[in-house]
């Protein structure tokens, strides 16, 4: 198992993922979010976005998985997340999710780790930016 990123400046191991329409469609089925901006190309072309986009929650799921890999069950149990959707993720985009530790504080027996996170596309545009916090027991 990899070492947890618990020092200021530590990188959170990221990963890349290509956005494909079939994954967006699967996400719509799994979540129950059938907004046509995500799944109906004909409709989406008529909007200012000009085509379908991935659900913001699908992109957040990639970021959450990065944190789950880094912090294990502590993320699912104590995590918190503030995210802003900056630009759409479109089919064909190659997303890179990454993060690093911004601060570490010991609060009454719990280590609070605050992380800065981004998801960028192949043009280096920020798709999602955010901050995550997780509580870890002091060993």
């Amino acid at each position, binding site marked *: 198992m990899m070492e947890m990123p618990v020092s200021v400046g530590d990188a959170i191991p990221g990963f890349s993922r290509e956005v494909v329409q079939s994954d967006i469609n699967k996400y719509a089925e799994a979540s129950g979010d059938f907004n046509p901006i995500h799944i109906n190309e004909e409709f989406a072309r008529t909007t200012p976005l000009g085509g379908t986009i991935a659900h913001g*929650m699908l992109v957040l799921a990639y970021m959450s998985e990065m944190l789950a890999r880094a912090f294990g*069950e502590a993320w699912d149990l104590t*995590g918190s997340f503030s995210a802003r959707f900056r630009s759409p993720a479109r089919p064909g985009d190659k997303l890179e999710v990454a993060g690093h530790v911004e601060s570490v504080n010991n609060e009454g027996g719990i280590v609070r780790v605050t992380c800065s996170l981004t998801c960028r596309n192949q043009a280096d545009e920020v798709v999602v930016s955010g901050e995550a916090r997780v509580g870890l027991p002091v060993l």
Partner: protein
Amino acid sequence: MRAKVYAELPAGYDDLTPGHEFPPVEYVLDEASVSAYVEAVGAAARLHVPPLAVAARAIASLGDLMEMPAGTIHASQDFDFSALVPVGARVICVAKVLRKLSRGPMRMLTLEMVVSDTNGSVVQRGRSTVVLPGA
């Protein structure tokens, strides 16, 4: 499968005011729906429900509560997780309007969602800001 809702809905944007609390929505995070979510996002295998799967269903349930016109998009999202949710659990989501903003054709809503288990213990809180397309 649609979630169980306890009142006549959906409400229109114009009917909503800050502080408006929607009726609770109840849903079951059964193995099939959790597996579909895990496959769709490429999540790691867990013995419990990935917290964003809980959140995704809560957010989707907003579509049963209020009119979400085609083209509604997500502007920001906050979460706080406070308990693991076992696969198969029944949870209840209560959503409330925190903020409403109309400027020209732009319409925004910020909604708070509190998801609890059937004992009333909060498992996660979320705050979503959505932008609705102009009328």
